[in-house]
């Protein structure tokens, strides 16, 4: 875990002191809303439909038990006893009062958390692989690099007023779990001659104009990371459009300018500023950061106790079949804790659940917790022999749902139930779909399928890259849901294809049911995933099922 230096503590305390004074000046009338708004946004404070919302960064998705307990305390003391984990490794509190926010920020600072640059036209919270440092398929833990980027980007004087928000994701694994290709900059670690570096992807993004990022540099030495990122963001800062909010993201800049030209400009800027960055200093800082992210000392184990328990207990078996990911140390596993109990709000955790996870992480998981962009929690280092006890502990808190990667493990943005930008609800649609597959008991039969729901075109729910994407719109004053099919959020990222006319609120769940049942009919064999069936057969048979028409050439 990163340990705050005196500089970090002082920086955060000063920033919080400034914001406390800004809030006081807003309340006493010295600041107008117009003046206050950019200040509150820089500190993660939104005004939503029913209340303020405070968005707190979970840098690269890593939390200590103490940090998670503090989030629980904040949820209880200043909110309504729960928090909402988002698709960008943040947690949102939906009901704070303006006057309480400075106290909430001070409480966060006690455990090294903050809400800086979780909003506004700045470089946002850098997201990373939630399995970092544990995954068997990883080249190197990307979190030291992510921390380096956080330090560089936080309060960066040149990048506080970008044309639009700017999101960076980083992974150390060839299997992309952070959707690098849907970020303004995606960093994918690759090895060349045994030396790790980064493939740099630029210009991805979802929203109104979804685009898959393109490779601007196929191999960037680690020591050049900061000047190269600075060159990209500086180039965008000058080129990016400020005349039209909808054309202001770097994806549009790259699209309108052309990747080749952008690359030339970035390389020129890089050549200019690289001498100002010391490669030795970057290497030294990274070495210092790597020492803070040393993996726990895990002894390889046999896992015999686990195997015996698994054979006896079908509930544990179902959990182990869906919620475990291979760990690099034999006899261990990465455990995903689903925040998608059937019928619950995706990504919500109560204060009691947060405390229970913190306790279990200390007892069975080396005290570490991760937050995934899939809106779940993760214990990255669990000995398989501890799994029966961990599973029992999770069950007691309603946290043992065995559905990771399945139809009810749905990403959903807050939608019209909270968000001032939304055009339709997302949460109840997710709740109903999960309820349906739970009632039919078909999701294990269906196999992995990613359903992603956004309540407006801004696509916080990543609907474009879901196997099944659902976009809620306002059509003449009525909620209407458009379906996309065949998207992918992994290393082969793809934007899904839009189906025909949308569905009314009371018709969208039956429509999704028809799609899921069509997969059961159409697949070649039980092991064929939804995405594979769509790839093999194309969209037509699914469209036919969706609109209940005869497919011309259905398989």
């Amino acid at each position, binding site marked *: 875990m990163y340990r705050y230096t005196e500089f970090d503590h002082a920086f955060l305390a000063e920033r919080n002191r400034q914001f406390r004074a800004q809030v006081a000046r807003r309340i006493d009338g010295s600041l107008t809303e117009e003046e206050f708004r950019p200040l509150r946004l820089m500190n993660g404070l939104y005004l939503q*439909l029913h209340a303020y919302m405070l968005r707190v960064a979970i840098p690269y998705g890593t939390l200590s038990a103490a940090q998670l307990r503090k989030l629980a305390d904040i949820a209880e003391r200043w909110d309504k006893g729960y928090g909402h984990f988002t698709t960008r490794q943040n947690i949102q509190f939906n009901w704070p009062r303006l006057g309480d926010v400075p106290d909430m920020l001070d409480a966060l600072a006690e455990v090294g958390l903050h809400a800086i640059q979780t909003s506004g036209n700045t470089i946002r919270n850098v997201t990373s692989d939630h399995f970092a440092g544990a995954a068997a398929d990883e080249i190197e833990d990307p979190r030291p690099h992510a921390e380096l980027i956080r330090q560089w980007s936080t309060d960066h004087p040149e990048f506080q007023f970008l044309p639009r928000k700017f999101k960076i994701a980083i992974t150390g694994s060839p299997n992309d779990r952070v959707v690098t290709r849907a970020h303004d900059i995606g960093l994918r670690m690759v090895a060349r001659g045994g030396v790790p570096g980064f493939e740099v992807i630029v210009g991805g993004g979802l929203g109104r104009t979804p685009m898959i990022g393109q490779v601007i540099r196929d191999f960037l030495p680690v020591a050049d990371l900061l000047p190269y990122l600075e060159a990209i963001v500086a180039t965008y800062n000058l080129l990016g459009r400020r005349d039209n909010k909808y054309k202001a993201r770097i994806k549009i800049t790259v699209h309108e300018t052309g990747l080749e030209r952008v690359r030339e400009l970035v390389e020129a800027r890089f050549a200019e500023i690289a001498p100002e960055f010391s490669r030795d200093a970057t290497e030294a800082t990274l070495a210092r950061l790597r020492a803070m992210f040393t993996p726990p000392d895990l002894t390889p184990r046999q896992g015999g106790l686990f195997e015996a328990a698994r054979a006896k207990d079908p509930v544990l078996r179902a959990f182990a079949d869906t919620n475990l990911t291979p760990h690099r140390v034999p006899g261990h596993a990465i455990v995903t804790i689903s925040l998608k109990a059937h019928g619950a709000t995706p990504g919500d955790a109560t204060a009691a659940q947060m405390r229970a996870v913190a306790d279990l992480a200390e007892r069975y998981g080396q005290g570490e917790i991760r937050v995934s962009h899939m809106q779940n929690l993760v214990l990255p280092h669990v000995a398989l022999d501890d799994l029966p006890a961990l599973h029992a502990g999770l069950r007691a808190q309603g946290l043992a749902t065995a559905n990771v990667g399945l139809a009810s493990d749905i990403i959903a943005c807050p939608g019209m139930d909270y968000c001032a930008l939304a055009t339709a609800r997302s949460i109840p649609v997710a709740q109903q779909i999960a309820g349906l597959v739970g009632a039919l008991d078909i999701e294990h039969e269906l196999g992995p399928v990613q359903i992603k729901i956004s309540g407006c075109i801004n696509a916080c729910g990543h609907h474009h890259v879901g196997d099944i994407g659902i976009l809620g719109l306002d059509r003449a*004053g009525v*909620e209407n849901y458009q379906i996309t099919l065949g998207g992918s959020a992994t290393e082969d990222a793809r934007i899904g294809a839009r189906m025909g006319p949308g569905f009314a609120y009371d018709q969208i769940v039956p429509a999704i049911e028809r799609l899921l049942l069509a997969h059961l009919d159409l697949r070649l064999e039980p092991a064929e995933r939804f995405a594979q069936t769509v790839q093999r057969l194309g969209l037509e048979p699914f469209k036919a099922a969706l609109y209940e028409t005869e497919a011309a050439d259905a398989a």
Partner: protein
Amino acid sequence: MRTGFVITANALLEGDVVWLTGTGALTRHLAGAQVFEDRAQAEAALAQASTRGHELVGPYLAEIRLTGHGPEPAHFREGFRARGPSNYRHGKQAETGTDRHVSLY
């Protein structure tokens, strides 16, 4: 169906949804809001409300339908603002009946 406008905003301190009443006070419940059937009058009242930045954030006109039970939101977004979210019984829908129609200030 008769339609009209109400003036609504978020309260500065709580962020809670409020509406303007006939006396210029604020209410937390749509039922207590002043309804303008005349657009020009509504615009004038909105201009007045826009000067109250020390207690209101983002005032605007919301369209309502006048029913036998009082004003009802014309658009579903205003319905959620008047009620609260649909996944939890939080916000206005969680409040007890007794404090309804009580003005804020």
